[in-house]
Structure formats: structure tokens, C-alpha cells
């Protein structure tokens, strides 16, 4: 469903989704092509772009966002500079956190993403706190906390949900159900429907197709309004088809770089992943939709993608050529109250 907004705004959603896709493609290639550049493991957002972009399009700059180990896309969706995101992911001085946080912890306080927890469920409590602050300080800020289906295994989610409801916090619990826990398939929960848990705690729930940016945007716009009106908290389940590249321990570009033309001509897509690109990929689906809509055609979209690719390449270059922090800087920033 096309989002209810102007043509340019619609194209801007696609731009953001493509930017996330292209940036994440670079992250995977950083790992594949630059020995030792990425020392540990990492998680990417490919396949969930429509959710992050749809949600953030419904938010105001002063709204708070909390994320997870799978944060790259969320930060870009909230308006993050892809160069500073990529630089943080590979630990450069020019990264959002001066390279101290890294891939698990990309945060952008100036975008009201104060801290990103890679502890499953960890952000649900912190986000409830930010919402409490907005409530007591009487600002109009809404807080959105992204977390995965797996986070609903953790007690901290349950405790936070309970307090968010008891205290009627201006908070939206945004559960991204990719039917995976990191790379692993594992239902892991005794509830048939995970939304039964917020229901049991009297929290209003909504389910959306996390691959449909328009639906996500429309739903969040309404919930954000109601949350500002003091009707929160809310729980949203955004369901996405798990991207095959996420199966296993390290993400892989199982189909190589996404070709925007696959939206219309899936022929070249490798057999085994064709179903996902046909039904699961919110970017290709949205591109098709847009091209059919008025005042926009396939060419516009292909050109937009070329533009985004150039920007993403530049961002990757920026990250790769950025300096590493000076070793001694390691000892800084333990305490705000110390002269660093």
C-alpha cells in the first residue's frame, strides 16, 4: 500500500531503504574483502528496511529511538549519515561514537539515539526510561524501541512492558519478527502468538507487514499521534520474511548485490533465493508499487538507485579512508566527570 504522502516523500522513503541496503551490502563486503577489517561478528538489516524506514518516517526529530545488535538500518532510517555509520561499524575516529561503540553499539545522541544495547532485550528497559523522562519533563517526545522476536524470551522485556503499561508511558514497543534468533531458526517461545503477551498485560497490539513500508508508516503515524496524546504504550509486531543471507553465523550476499531491476525482472535472481526476492524484499515490492503509481516510473527509480549507490560508495570510501582513533584515546571517556 502506497504511503499517504507526496511523490517526493514517497521517493525519499525508497531512497532511505535503498541507502540502508547499499550500506549493508558494503558492510558484508568489508568483511569479505578486507582481511581483518572486521574482527568480530556482526548483524545486518537487509530485508527489514521497510520497517525501520516506515517507522522513522512517522517520527519527529525529538523522538527517541532505541535499537539492538541489528542497529545499522535503524540509525540510517532515523536520519543517520551513512558515512558516519559505516565508519563506526569499522571503528573509525569519524564514526558516530568515535569508533568506541562499533557495529553492536552504533548510537547517535544528536538524533536522539542515546545508546544502543546489543544485549537481547536490554533496550526495552532503557527506552521505557527515556519515555518516563519525556513524561515527567512534559516534552512531546515519543520513544520507539526496536527489538526482535527473540527479545521476548528475556524477563527484562516482560518487566519493562509491565511498568510501561502501569505508568502509561509514551512508548511504542516495535517488535521485528524475522522468525529468527540471529542466524538461528528457533521458535523458543511457548506463546502461539507473541502478541498474546502484551495483550495479557493490557497493552494494545497491532500487527503489520514489516515488508510494506506504506503500511508500517501509516500505522506508526497513527500510533505516534495517539502516544503523544497519552494513550500509550503500544506494541507493534512487524513481520518480515527472514532474508536468507542471515542464516548462519556471518551474513552473506547470497544473491550478490541487489539489482533494482529485479523488481520487474527477477529472472537473474539465483534460484534458491528467488522466492525471497519475489515476496520478501520490501524494497523491490515498493519499487514496483511506486513505478505503477502516478508521477513516477521505472526510470526514475533506477536513476534514484544509481544516485544512492554513488552516495553509499562514497560513504564506504569515507569510512575506509578515515583514520583509526589514536591508541591512547582508549583511556578517555570512562567518566564524564574527569578531564579526558
Amino acid at each position, binding site marked *: 500500500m502506497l504511503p499517504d504522502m507526496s511523490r517526493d516523500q514517497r521517493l525519499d522513503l525508497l531512497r532511505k531503504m535503498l541507502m540502508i541496503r547499499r550500506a549493508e551490502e558494503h558492510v558484508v563486503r568489508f568483511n569479505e574483502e578486507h582481511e581483518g577489517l572486521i574482527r568480530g561478528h556482526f548483524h545486518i538489516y537487509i530485508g527489514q528496511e521497510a520497517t525501520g524506514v516506515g517507522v522513522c518516517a512517522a517520527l519527529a526529530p525529538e523522538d*527517541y529511538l*532505541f535499537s539492538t545488535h541489528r542497529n545499522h538500518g535503524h540509525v540510517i532510517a532515523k536520519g543517520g549519515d551513512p558515512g558516519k555509520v559505516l565508519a563506526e561499524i569499522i571503528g573509525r575516529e569519524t*564514526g*558516530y*561514537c*568515535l*569508533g*568506541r*561503540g562499533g557495529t553492536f*553499539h552504533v*548510537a547517535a*545522541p*544528536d538524533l536522539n539515539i*542515546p*545508546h544502543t*544495547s546489543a*544485549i537481547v532485550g*536490554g533496550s*526495552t*528497559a*532503557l*527506552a*521505557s*526510561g*527515556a*519515555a*518516563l*523522562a*519525556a513524561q*515527567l*519533563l512534559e516534552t512531546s*517526545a515519543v520513544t520507539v524501541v526496536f527489538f526482535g522476536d527473540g527479545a521476548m524470551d528475556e*524477563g*527484562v522485556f516482560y*518487566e*519493562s512492558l*509491565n*511498568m510501561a503499561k*502501569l*505508568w502509561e508511558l509514551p512508548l511504542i514497543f516495535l517488535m521485528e519478527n524475522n522468525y529468527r534468533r540471529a542466524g538461528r531458526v528457533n521458535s523458543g517461545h511457548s506463546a502461539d502468538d507473541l502478541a498474546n503477551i502484551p495483550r495479557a498485560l493490557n497493552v494494545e497490539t497491532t500487527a503489520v507487514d514489516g515488508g510494506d513500508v506504506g503500511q508500517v508508516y501509516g500505522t506508526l503515524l497513527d500510533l505516534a499521534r495517539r502516544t503523544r496524546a497519552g494513550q500509550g504504550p503500544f506494541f507493534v509486531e512487524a513481520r518480515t520474511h527472514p532474508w536468507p543471507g542471515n542464516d548462519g553465523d556471518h551474513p552473506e550476499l547470497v544473491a550478490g548485490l541487489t539489482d533494482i531491476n529485479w523488481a520487474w525482472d527477477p529472472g537473474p535472481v539465483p534460484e534458491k533465493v528467488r522466492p525471497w526476492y519475489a515476496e520478501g524484499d520490501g524494497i523491490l515490492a515498493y519499487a514496483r508499487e511506486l513505478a505503477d503509481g502516478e508521477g513516477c516510473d521505472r526510470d526514475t527509480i533506477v536513476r534514484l538507485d544509481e544516485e544512492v549507490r554513488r552516495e553509499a560508495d562514497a560513504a564506504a570510501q569515507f569510512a575506509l579512508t578515515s583514520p583509526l582513533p589514536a591508541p591512547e584515546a582508549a583511556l*578517555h*571517556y*570512562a*567518566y*564524564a*566527570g*574527569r578531564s*579526558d
Partner: protein
Amino acid sequence: MPQEMTLGEALVEGLAEAMEQDQRVMLIGGGLVSSGPARARFASVRQRHGRRIKSPPIAELGYCGIAAGAAMAGLRPLVDVGTATFSYEAIPQINNEAAVAYSNSGGQTNVPVTYFMRYGIRGGGGVQHSGSPQPWYWNTPGLQVAMPATPADAKGLLRNALLKSRDPTIFFAHERLLGERGPVPDGEYETEFGKASVAREGNDVTIVAVGVQVPRALAAADALARDGIAAEVVDPKTLEPLDTETLLASVGKTGRLVVTDESHDNCGVAAGLAALMADLAFDSLKAPIKRVAIPHVPVPFAVPLEDYVTPTAERIEEAARSLLR
């Protein structure tokens, strides 16, 4: 002129002032004290500032994390966790979120939250109400650790944490100190973090004591004085930041050191302080560094057992004597 009050009253006083002075100061949890006149004083605070006081469900992990998140978003929360062992539930949010956000954000995100907890062997608490986790918190970079020994310091340190600090603080009050009286200066004041006080001067042996061990060390010093042994008692007040200079100066003068804290001995606070001195003060040491702490056994319940594992004034005195034989 200074008023006499209990440590518990001083804490509630500090909280009352802080909530009055700064709208960002809020409280999650009980009223720092469970009984006595301070309880009544707290009732009036609740009266006045109820909107900024939240009574949470029994969910320490959740509400300690909520306090940290609220601090990231502009509040200055105080959390009354109650018994220190209950804070174990919240370690993921305290040690792995609140403590790391400032460093992890490259110095952008401040987390001015204070976690108040009652630690130690209270008397009849049993193992699960007699915890002393201060070594775990001091071991964790990003956290400040305050352990006041007097009503005056309790109030001054709490005001500092609530009104001035930009970092998370773990604030320990020993169960058995809450009812102890002492003079508290009039008016508004903060007690500096990282500034130790010499609670008693002496040239023969240094006793570095933390929290409830300070009055015990002073009692030990009295007993030693009767035999002509002049013990110097140093109270760091905060472990993080730590006033290493004052400790070094004292050990440099006496050459003998007893360190004492009411936490378990392995990797305990006494051990942490002893290790620092075994490096930095080695050249002035004339004798082994003695630790007086809780022996390595879960705190048992029965009166004689509980008393036996308590690091009493007698044990401090004995440790000091052993250095002068």
C-alpha cells in the same frame, strides 16, 4: 550550627533538598529508610513531590534500566534498590548499560543516575539479605562508588550524586549505620567525590576503612591507643574516584597498613586497596598488608555464626597489633 541526626535522616534530608532544587531529580522505589523519624520526613517529601516518585513493581532489572534510560534522556533519577543483594537482578542494566553508555558513545551520552542500596551483615538477614557487592561495582569502569560512614558525608555525597554528578553512582549505606547519629552541617553543601578524610591521626599504623568499617576502625584505634599504639584511620568516602594520594601519604608516614571493608575477601575491596598499596607504597612498607574482611563463606544466619564472620573492631585491632609485634 550543625544538627545531630541519623545517617538515615541525613539521606532523606539530602533527597528532600535535591528534589526541591532540581526538577530533574526523581525517585524510583522506597524512601531510603524503612523506619524511624526519617520515615515521616520522607512521607512529607512524597506529599510534595509525589509526581516524581514512582513505586515500581518488584522488577529490579526493569526499573534500574528504566532509571538509566531516564538519565540518558534528561532526568537525574535516584533508585532505592533496597537490600544490596536485590541489585544483583539489575547488574545487566547497571554494569552493562548505565556504566558503558558514556564511553561507548564517545563521550556524548551522560547517565547521571544513582543506585542506592543497603549492604552488609545487618543482623539476622540470612545469606540473601547480607550481601556486599561493592567489589563488583568498583571493578566496573564507568561506575562511581560512594560509601559514606557518617551522616554528614551521607548527605553531602548524596547531594553531589543527585545534583552535580554526570556519571552513574552506586551509593552504599550499611544497614547498621542508618540509625547512627552524627552532626550534619546546616544549609546546602556537597561532599567531594575522591577526597578521603583522615578520621583519626596516628604515626604507628594506617587503617584504611570503608563504610561501616570506619566506626569499627575508630573503636579499634581507641583500644590500640590504650596500649600506646597510635593508629591513623583513613576514610576514602568514595572508592571510585579514589583518593590514592591521601592513602599513600598516610602509609608513607606509618609504614604499616591494615585495610578493611565488610565485603568478602577474594577480590574484595580490602584486597583491591591492598593491591594498590602493595605496588605504589611498597618502599615505605615495613610489614605485610593485612586485610580485615568477610571470610570466604556464605554469610550464615545464626547469631554466633553471623558475628563470627563480621569484620569487627576486635579483628581490626588484632590485625594492627600483629604488624607491631
